[in-house]
C-alpha cells in the first residue's frame, strides 16, 4: 500500500500552490493511493544496472550565432497580464505578516 494520506496530499497541494478544498483532498487521497500503487510496478524492473533515459533522442551542441534575435516588446509581454502598470507586472504583497 502506498503512503498517501490526507495530510500528505494537503502538503503536496501547498507545494504545488493549489488551494484544494477538504473534499478534493479526500477524493485525491483515495485516487492517488490507487495510482501510486499501480505505477510503483516500475520498481520491479528498474534494477541498478539499468541506466536512466531522460530524453528519448539526446542532442548535443546546438550552437547558434551569437546575434540578437526578435524579442517581445514590453507592451506585448504585458498584453495578457491580469494586472500591470505599463512597464511591470503588478501583484499583491509578496511577503505575509509573519515574514
Amino acid at each position: 500500500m502506498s503512503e498517501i494520506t490526507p495530510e500528505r496530499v494537503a502538503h503536496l497541494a501547498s507545494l504545488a500552490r493549489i488551494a484544494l478544498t477538504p473534499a478534493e483532498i479526500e477524493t485525491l487521497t483515495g485516487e492517488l493511493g490507487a495510482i501510486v500503487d499501480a505505477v510503483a510496478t516500475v520498481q520491479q524492473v528498474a534494477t541498478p544496472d539499468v541506466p536512466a533515459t531522460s530524453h528519448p533522442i539526446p542532442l548535443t551542441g546546438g550552437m547558434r550565432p551569437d546575434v540578437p534575435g526578435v524579442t517581445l516588446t514590453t507592451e506585448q509581454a504585458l498584453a495578457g497580464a491580469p494586472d500591470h502598470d505599463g512597464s511591470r507586472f503588478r501583484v499583491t504583497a509578496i511577503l505575509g505578516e509573519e515574514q
Partner: protein
Amino acid sequence: MSAELSSDLIRSSAADLAARLAAGEVSSVEVTQAHLDRIAAVDGDVHAFLHVNAAALETAAQVDADRADGVALPALAGVPIAIKDVLCTLDMPSTSGSKILEGWVPPYDATVVARLRAARMIPLGKTNMDEFAMGSSTEHSAYGPTRNPWDLERIPGGSGGGSAAAVSAFEAPVALGSDTGGSIRQPAAVTGSVGVKPTYGAVSRYGAIALASSLDQVGPVSRTVLDAALVHDVIGGHDARDATSIPDAWPSMAEAARRGARGDVLKGLRVGVVKELDGDGEGFQAGVRQRFTETLDLLAGAGAEIVEVSAPNFEYAVAAYYLILPAEASSNLAKFDSVRFGLRVEVPGGTVEDVMAATREAGFGPEVKRRIILGTYALSAGYYDAYYGSAQKVRTLIQRDFAAAFEKADILVSPSAPTTAFRFGEKLADPLAMYLNDVTTIPANLAGVPGMGLPMGLAPEDGLPTGLQLMAPAREDARLYEAGAAIEALLESHWGGPLWAQVPALPGSASNGGAR
C-alpha cells in the same frame, strides 16, 4: 455555391483540393466557405471547435488574389486546416482547453502555425481538447466535450478529439494535433481517421503549450495518409527555437506516401506484431482483435512477411508514463502563476502566494490537479529515485525492446487503441481505467519513435471504427508514410472505398456531407 459543390468540396482530400485550386477549378474562398458552412451546420452537435477564425475568408481571398496575379504559391496554398488549441496563434485565443487560459491570445505563433501560414494554408479555427492534453476522451476539456461524429453519444478520443472529429465530420480536410501518449493516434482510431506522431524532435514544439517535454510531439491529423504526409512536410524540419529539434535533413513524406500507394512496397516488408500488444491481452475488444487479425492476413496476402516480436518491458510502459508525465507536467504548469498571463483570482488581503493558490484551484480542472499533485509527489525528496528515477530506467528498457524488435522487423504493428469509442462518463470515475486506454500508444512516446494510426475497419459488434498503429525506428518517419499508404490502399480495395465515407449523416447536415 450549389449544395452539390459544397458537399463535394468538404469530402475532398487536401491533395485533391490543392490540385483543383492550382488548376483554377475552384477558389480558396469557395473551399473555405464550404467548410465554414459545414462547421455552422454540424458543430453545434459535434463541438470540435473552441474558436472559429473570423478572418478565414479574408485570408482565402488573399490567396485567390495572389493566384490570379500569377504569384508562385506553395502546394497547399488555399487549403483550410484546423489547429489544436494547444498551439499558440497570434490571432486566435489559445487555451489548451483550460479555464486558466480562457481568452488568452498569445504574443507569438507556434512555429508549426507560422509554417502553415507561410504555406498559405487557411486556419479555420482552434479545436477542442482535454485540458492541457491530459485525457483520452475530451471529457476533461473545461469547455465541454467533443462528440464522436460516428455516434454523438460517444467520445472522440483524446486529448485531440476536436481535431479528429473535425476531419471525420468534414469540418476540415486536415488538422494539427499533439501527441504525448497517444493524443493524435487514439482519436484517429476511434473516429476512423489518420494521425501521425512524428519522431521526437522531427516537428518543432516552439509555441506548443507544454505538457511533458520529453514526450510531446506535434503532428498531422487527416482522412488520408497522403494528406497527413503533405501536412507533415509543411510543419516538419529543424527549428532553432526548439532545443530538441533534430537538425537532420528529412526526405519528403508526401513522396513516400505516393510511392507507397503506387508500388508494391508490401512485398517482402517485414511486419512485426508486438506480442504484448497483439490484442489478445486483457482489455482488448473482440472486434478490434478480429479486424487486426484480418488486416495481418491481408498484409500476408500482399506479400508482407509477418513476424512476431516480443517487447516484454512494454508491460511497464503505462506505469512509467504516469510517473514521467505528471512529474514533467507539474513543472511545466508551474508557469500558470496568476502573474504574467491567464486567470487571476483576487484574495482580499492575500499575498501573491495566496492569489496563486486560489487561481490554480479555480483555474485547473480535476485531472490537471490530480496529475500535478502526483508529479509533485514523484519528484519529492525521498521518493525521486523510487518513482521518477525508476520510470526513467523503464524508458531505457523500452528503447532496448524497440531496438531488438526492429532487428527483426521493418515496421511494427498493433491496434491503435484497445477498444472502439466508449460512451461519455464510462471511464470518468476511474482515472486508472482511462489511463489504460493508452497502453498501445505510450511505448512510442517513451522511446521517441514515430507512430501512425490509420483506419482498420468497423468492429462487427458495434459498427464503430477501429485503428491500426504502425511504428518505425526513430527518424524513419518516411517508412511509416510509405507503408501506411500501401496498407490504406490495400484495405480500401478490400472494403470497396475509404472508411470515412461510411460515417453516418449528422443532424443539421442535410445533404451536405455524411453517408448518402
